[in-house]
């Protein structure tokens, strides 16, 4: 298991951009066959409420671009000073070229700049941070622009109760740079590729290209409709995976960093849903006030953008007045892949959640 620590690297700004179109589960009774009780149970147990989704014209790249522009505007950084762009997404504009190159062009960055995509979802933000820290610590670059965003709402079948009400969209931009005075940052990263089929879009890649057949939605045994081009999730397996692996990896990271859970100001988990988050918190015996979980109820599960949305949306004030500086970030999901980071977020030039404007 890769575990590592860095010093002299810091996060200096985070901006997340969300679409303005809001969907409420209360308006979707039809999806639940008119069963009010079932819908009420889902609201109460899983914590489903509302979510923000993009229209058909907007992509994750658009959301990330707006977040990046605002981040650059509000920070002291010049676009020419950015020497690497990492884009974490599973919903890129094209199968090629990568989003990072497209956005590099749209943002007008220097030619002396590396740009690459990372194909990860819910664990992707932490993986992206780890890569940025690794690149800077190695001496390879000074400033990394980490873009993490997804539009999973466009991959779900509207008639699949298992996923349609869960997912929202978002795009984020984070600036990571060298800093002599910064505190140590710790990471741990994991993969269990044997579970890859539990969260998957089967068609559209080289293994199963899109055809007329893959476009057809079929009803499953639970009465949900989806085509092989839609996202499939085995909810029970993902739940089992999350409550088994997440607490373990958090404990391991704290041990590695030689820090007590009490000394962490906030535990920012990937915003899967309130049920998973509270089960993880319960197993770790965490003070629930230290675990942001309103993000998912407001914006939906935003895949790679969920951790930055939780930071910008729920912790901006606490970070600004320095009542919270030590964060444990942890993402888990598609891959299966999971990763945790213990970061010191001292002086952010910007930490804001903004609405997308077309």
């Amino acid at each position: 298991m890769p575990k590592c620590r860095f010093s002299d690297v810091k996060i200096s700004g985070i901006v997340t951009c969300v679409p303005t179109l809001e969907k409420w589960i209360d308006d979707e009774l039809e999806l639940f066959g008119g069963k009010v009780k079932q819908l009420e149970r889902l609201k109460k147990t899983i914590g489903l409420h509302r979510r923000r989704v993009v229209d058909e014209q907007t992509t994750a790249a658009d959301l990330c671009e707006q977040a990046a522009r605002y981040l650059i505007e509000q920070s002291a950084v010049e676009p020419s000073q950015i020497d690497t762009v990492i884009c974490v997404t599973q919903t890129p504009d094209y199968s090629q070229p990568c989003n990072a190159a497209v956005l590099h062009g749209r943002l007008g960055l220097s030619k002396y700049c590396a740009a690459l995509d990372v194909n990860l979802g819910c664990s992707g933000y932490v993986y992206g941070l780890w890569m940025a820290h690794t690149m800077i610590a190695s001496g390879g670059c000074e400033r990394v622009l980490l873009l993490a965003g997804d539009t999973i709402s466009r991959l779900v079948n509207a008639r699949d109760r298992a996923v349609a009400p869960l997912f929202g969209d978002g795009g984020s931009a984070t600036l990571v740079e060298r800093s002599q005075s910064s505190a140590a940052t710790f990471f741990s990263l994991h993969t269990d590729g044997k579970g890859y089929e539990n969260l998957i879009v089967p068609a559209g890649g080289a293994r199963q290209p899109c055809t007329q057949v893959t476009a057809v939605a079929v009803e499953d045994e639970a009465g949900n409709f989806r085509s092989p081009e839609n996202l499939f999730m085995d909810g029970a397996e993902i739940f089992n995976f999350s409550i088994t692996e997440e607490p373990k990896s958090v404990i391991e990271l704290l041990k590695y960093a030689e820090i007590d859970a009490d000394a962490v100001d906030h535990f920012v988990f990937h915003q899967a849903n309130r049920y998973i988050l509270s089960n993880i918190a319960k197993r770790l015996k965490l003070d629930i006030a230290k675990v942001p979980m309103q993000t998912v109820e407001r914006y939906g599960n935003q895949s790679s953008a969920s951790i930055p949305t939780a930071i910008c949306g729920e912790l901006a004030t606490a970070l600004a007045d320095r009542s919270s500086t030590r964060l444990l970030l942890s993402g888990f999901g598609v891959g299966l892949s999971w990763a945790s980071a213990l970061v010191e977020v001292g002086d952010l030039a910007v930490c804001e959640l903004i609405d997308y404007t077309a």
Partner: protein
Amino acid sequence: MELDTFIKNFEEAVEDVEVGSLSGNTVYRSLEHWDSLAVLTVIAMVDAEYDLRLKAKELKQIETLSELHALLESKQST
């Protein structure tokens, strides 16, 4: 693992099931409130109360609460 306690925990995990209404012979998958959410809440209950991993597939293969209880006991002893 007591069967009675397990049934009580099961009743509490599946919402809208009256406590005391189920027995070891209950075919839980025929319950009105048995759905994918109930699968999740039962898995979570088994995890929280007994520290055991129950798979959705296993819940689909078993018929009665007694059989489910027996499966968990066998998991506990391994």
